[in-house]
């Protein structure tokens, strides 16, 4: 009985004063929820999150996520985090909308919620951290596609699932930026579902079905590796180039082989680092997440929210033969 009253009281407190009030003495706990465990990009983000947690001190970082990239799986994860009464949740969403009800419940119970990498609809979070601006990524992808073929030829896109928010935004931005390179012609988009084997098979089918394609743009860290491997296995190195977004440590071999000339990525370590800082800023009551608010993000300086509650980490970095090996040691 008493337990319930205490719970109700603490819930009311959480509602009244925002979450920050509750973690004076205890260690603050911030949960970093990823799309699925075992993905290199998120492991790197985890490292950044740990770095931020160490700097902030008195902070326990819980790194978690489902086994498959589904909204239902993430809802289960968030459910258990609500039950543990963490102070903040920083999530990269498998579904923009389906996570809104459960994250709303988290906020009702006094948990601060931000999204990063792949956004949650505004009703389900207090702030969102974009890895880069969609426009910048689209432009970078077009630049990357044009580079190995001097801006002339047919290109194709290898994406993840047709429902992935960020993939579709980037592809749309890419299509918008395409007219800047008049010689490029987008033939088709195929979907590898963020699975190595499916992406590989889709690439092989693409190479056979569209021999005119010169560049495959894969804005996915799993797809780009599978596509590069497929190009090498089909002996198309030098005829077909793979580019897109990927991890230096996973692509360093393919850059040496020549199937990948150059690719881009924002620094996932920085992304995870900034996400944890932002979650902490809100949960501790330091920053009120309203339009224009400026978040201190440690060694990266500060990032501010636009009128839709979005902050931007920065433009993606381009990697090629000259700098990939050095970056591969980091992530």
């Amino acid at each position, binding site marked *: 009985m008493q337990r319930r009253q205490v719970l109700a009281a603490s819930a009311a407190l959480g509602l009244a004063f925002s979450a920050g009030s509750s973690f004076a003495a205890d260690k603050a706990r911030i949960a970093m929820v990823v799309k699925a465990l075992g993905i290199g990009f998120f492991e790197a983000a985890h490292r950044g999150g740990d770095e931020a947690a160490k700097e902030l001190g008195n902070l326990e970082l819980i790194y978690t996520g489902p086994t498959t990239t*589904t909204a239902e799986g993430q809802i289960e994860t968030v459910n258990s985090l609500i039950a543990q009464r963490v102070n903040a949740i920083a999530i990269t969403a498998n579904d923009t909308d389906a996570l809104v*009800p459960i994250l709303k419940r988290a906020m009702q119970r006094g948990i601060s919620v931000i999204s990063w990498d792949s956004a949650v609809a505004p009703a389900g979070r207090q702030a969102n951290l974009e890895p880069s601006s969609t426009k910048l990524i689209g432009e970078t992808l077009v630049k990357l596609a044009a580079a190995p073929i001097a801006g002339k030829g047919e290109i194709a896109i290898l994406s993840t699932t047709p429902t992935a928010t960020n993939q579709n935004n980037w592809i749309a931005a890419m299509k918008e930026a395409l007219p800047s390179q008049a010689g490029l012609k987008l033939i088709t988009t195929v979907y590898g579902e963020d699975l190595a084997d499916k992406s590989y098979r889709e690439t092989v089918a693409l190479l056979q079905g569209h021999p005119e394609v010169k560049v495959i743009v894969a804005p996915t860290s799993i797809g780009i590796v599978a596509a590069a491997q497929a190009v090498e296995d089909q002996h198309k190195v030098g005829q077909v180039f793979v580019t897109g977004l990927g991890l230096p440590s996973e692509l360093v071999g393919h850059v040496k082989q020549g199937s990948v000339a150059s690719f881009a990525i924002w620094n996932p370590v920085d992304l995870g680092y900034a996400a944890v800082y932002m979650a902490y800023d809100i949960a501790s009551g330091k920053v009120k997440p309203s339009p224009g608010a400026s978040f201190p993000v440690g060694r990266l300086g500060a990032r501010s929210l636009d009128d839709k509650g979005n902050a931007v980490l920065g433009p993606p970095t381009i990697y090629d033969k000259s700098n990939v090996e050095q970056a591969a040691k980091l992530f």
Partner: protein
Amino acid sequence: MQSSQQITIDRPAASRAGGIPDRLPQRPTDLLLRWEVLLLIFLALVVLINVQLSPFFFDPYNLSDATFNFTEKAIVALPMTLLIIAGDIDLSVASIIALASTAMGAAAVAGASTAVLLVLGPLVGLACGILNGWLVTAFSVPAIIVTIGTMSLYRGICYIALGDQAYKNYPDGFDFFGQGYVFWVFSFEFCLFIVLAVIFGVVLHRTSFGRRVYAIGNNPTAALFSGIDVQRYRLVLFALVGLFSGLASVLLTSRLGSTRPNIATAWELEIITMVVLGGVNINGGSGTVPGVFIAAFVMGFLTFGMGLLNIPGIVMTVLIGFLLILAIALPVVIRKLTSARRRSA
């Protein structure tokens, strides 16, 4: 082998049959070895260990939140229990959920009211189930083949209809069914599941319909020659599974407040895992509703407890897989042991 197991299960029929025993005499140890009892002990262990390990487990609000993770699957597991006991299987249930959700989403966009959606979801599910049942019975194709096919078919329709879009304009009040509470911490979903479990328990264990389901699962040919319209029964069971997948779709859609074509991905395996863990013979012929009912809680609380300890989901899947193998292996091992003992005696 199967029949001996079935005999121990249908206790109620003995009294109705006028005292003619329908099972071998049982010793108290046999009762202890019943699958439901073992599961119940295991469930108690799961709860006990969780309470020991996490201060957050034994909290009515948290336990209530935890039920949301498995209630919809458990509701589909009920008719699935009957279907598997009858010797069939339906792998398309998750896709039926997706298709029913897509249909409701499209209707909601067209301005349908909550009441219309409540009818539409189960109706679409029923139609899918009838199609499954018709394909299986009319062409004598194994259920596993047919439903692998319709699994892709139903899901494919969702992808064609939605692509990378989502339906999210559900009418006010629709969110009650997946998010609302009947009283205190008992959600609508959860109460519905309890009521349905009782109904399914009665139907399977106390009616002639239920006894015929067992008969069909044990030997369809013998069942046919005993005057049971086997094909019609199978069709009805597929339709039931479809209907309740549609109902689960209403609850899930209401809980998520949106529909994407990948909704409920891979749920068919979790639902079938629940049924098999509940002690239902995957080859048909035996199993009980109470067993599946307990298994739903075992799976739900086990994964929730591990979630509270932030055990990675990969480890959870390994553990559930291990449990499933155990569930299938244990009865076989026990049977071998006891028959060896009987021979030596």
